[in-house]
């Protein structure tokens, strides 16, 4: 079994008592207990302002399959941001220096994960761990 683990450490001194949370998970195929995600895609993109772009296209074959997505905004200017959109719904703003990690579930074939860049050209690094992807037939 392919093994992918994602760990997080969250620490804060915002409260009078410090907060420290950890978590580690092994990324599994949907509905399975011993079958790990076995495919991945990754990339680095420069996202110009003015247009929304599909970072990840939803597909019919991907409906209700497991996907975990990591996105990091590598812009060094913290005023730069991208808006994260799923199925035309704005989720939030990822500013320069920020990262996010989410389970992305396609509940239909239009459930694209999109980005729109603001302030300036943002540089994005991303990785998608997934299952059940087949290559597109030549000529499609």
């Amino acid at each position, binding site marked *: 079994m392919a*093994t992918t683990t994602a760990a997080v*450490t969250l620490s804060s001194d915002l*409260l009078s008592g410090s*907060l420290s949370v950890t978590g580690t998970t092994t990324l599994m195929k949907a509905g399975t207990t011993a079958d790990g995600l076995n495919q991945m895609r990754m990339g680095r993109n420069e996202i110009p302002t003015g247009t929304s772009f599909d970072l990840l296209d939803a597909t019919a074959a991907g409906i209700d399959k497991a996907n975990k997505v990591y996105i990091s905004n590598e812009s060094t200017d913290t005023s730069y941001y991208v808006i994260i959109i799923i199925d035309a719904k704005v989720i939030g703003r990822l500013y320069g220096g920020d990262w996010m990690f989410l389970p992305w579930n396609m509940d239909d074939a239009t459930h694209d994960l999109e980005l729109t860049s603001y302030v300036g050209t943002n540089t994005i690094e991303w990785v998608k761990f997934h299952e059940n992807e087949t290559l597109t037939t030549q000529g499609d």
Partner: protein
Amino acid sequence: MATTATISIASDIMGGFGGISKTMTLTEAGGTGDLRETTGYSRKKLVAATATNLFTMAHSAVTSADTTTGAKVFIKNIGNGATPSVIAKDKGVVVRVSAVEVGKLYGGDWMMIPVSTVDGEDIEVIPETDDAVVLEYVMFYQ
């Protein structure tokens, strides 16, 4: 008063993948000031496959109802909450933002995403089954 989050990813799917390690400090939108508000770390046990709000943005505790503010949400599925907690990797909890499905958190999974704190942009969860599942969650905002 800083809040930091560090992610580490390791995988043997692809031989050349060297892993990821990244730390961010949770800051105000577009700036460097620390996020200074939080809902506090919470825990909720769900026992039915019905929708439950984890974060209601119109709640008085979330005062920054503005799209331009910075906010981050962390949610973790810790299993059924028994001692020891039984973590069902094959059972998920759907997470939705303003009724749009983001993804499913299976047993042991966690997520961290930026969110809007605009009223009505609530974050709700729906277990796939009636089996008990416990979520831990926190939001930091400005």
